[in-house]
């Protein structure tokens, strides 16, 4: 039962983290290079610009869901299972999100990488 709860936590963490990543990436893409922005207008203005973005805050809300789900999972399972499993499955979900929602060029090489990552996750989960 504990294993089932762990995997439910992993799936919730992955879904919420991927949604969070896509929203945050979209917000940061629209805002532009923070280094240049803080150089031109100051660090305070750059931070304010990020924190006033609704898209960024939506991403943070999803990240908060992922955080608590991850915390819950950590109370049942080892970090060496939870950490890599959630991180690499999130990588797969992110590749799909980046392709369909952010218009990034997710080419054959990036999909090959995804297969490596998924194989890695299966090995981690079986041990």
């Amino acid at each position, binding site marked *: 039962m504990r294993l089932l709860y762990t995997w439910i936590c992993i799936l919730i963490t992955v879904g919420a983290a991927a949604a969070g990543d896509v929203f945050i990436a979209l917000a940061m*893409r629209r805002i532009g290079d923070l280094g240049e922005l803080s150089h031109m207008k100051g660090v305070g203005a750059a931070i304010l610009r990020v924190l006033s973005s609704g898209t960024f805050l939506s991403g943070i809300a999803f990240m908060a869901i992922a955080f608590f789900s*991850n915390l819950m999972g950590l109370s049942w399972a080892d*970090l060496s299972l939870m950490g890599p499993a959630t991180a690499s499955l999130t990588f797969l979900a992110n590749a799909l999100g980046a392709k369909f929602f952010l218009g*990034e060029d997710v080419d054959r090489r*990036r999909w*090959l990488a995804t297969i490596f*990552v998924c194989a890695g996750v299966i090995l981690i989960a079986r041990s």
Partner: protein
Amino acid sequence: MTLRKYLVILSVVIFSPAGDAFLARGMKQVGAIDVHHLLHLIAAVANPWIILGIASLMAGMASYATALSFADLTYVLPATAFGYVNMVLIAHFWLGEHISLVRWAGIVLIVMGVGVVARGPSRTGETGVAVAASSAQEEGE
């Protein structure tokens, strides 16, 4: 990619796994949380290790957001993948978790996967075409 940009990515690799390790240490002190007492999860946030973990994750998050301001999501994630290796090393040497050979093999595969993907332009997509072209030019120099 300038030195500043590499340092931003390095910060993600250091702070994020350290944050996870602090959280794991904290949750081991708190103990397993019963599904019928989910509010205990809120109480866990008062644990000093959890607080340290949250602070470290916030530093990692700030670096991560900064990285996303100049590079693709599918570039930043692989580039910061060595954080997973750090995390397993911390889990093994500091938290005393047993890492089996099969689990190590899994980690190696993940790192190989992200290594494959990292060798491309840092920015693509609708607003990133020009940046992708310029970073490809940078690589050629």
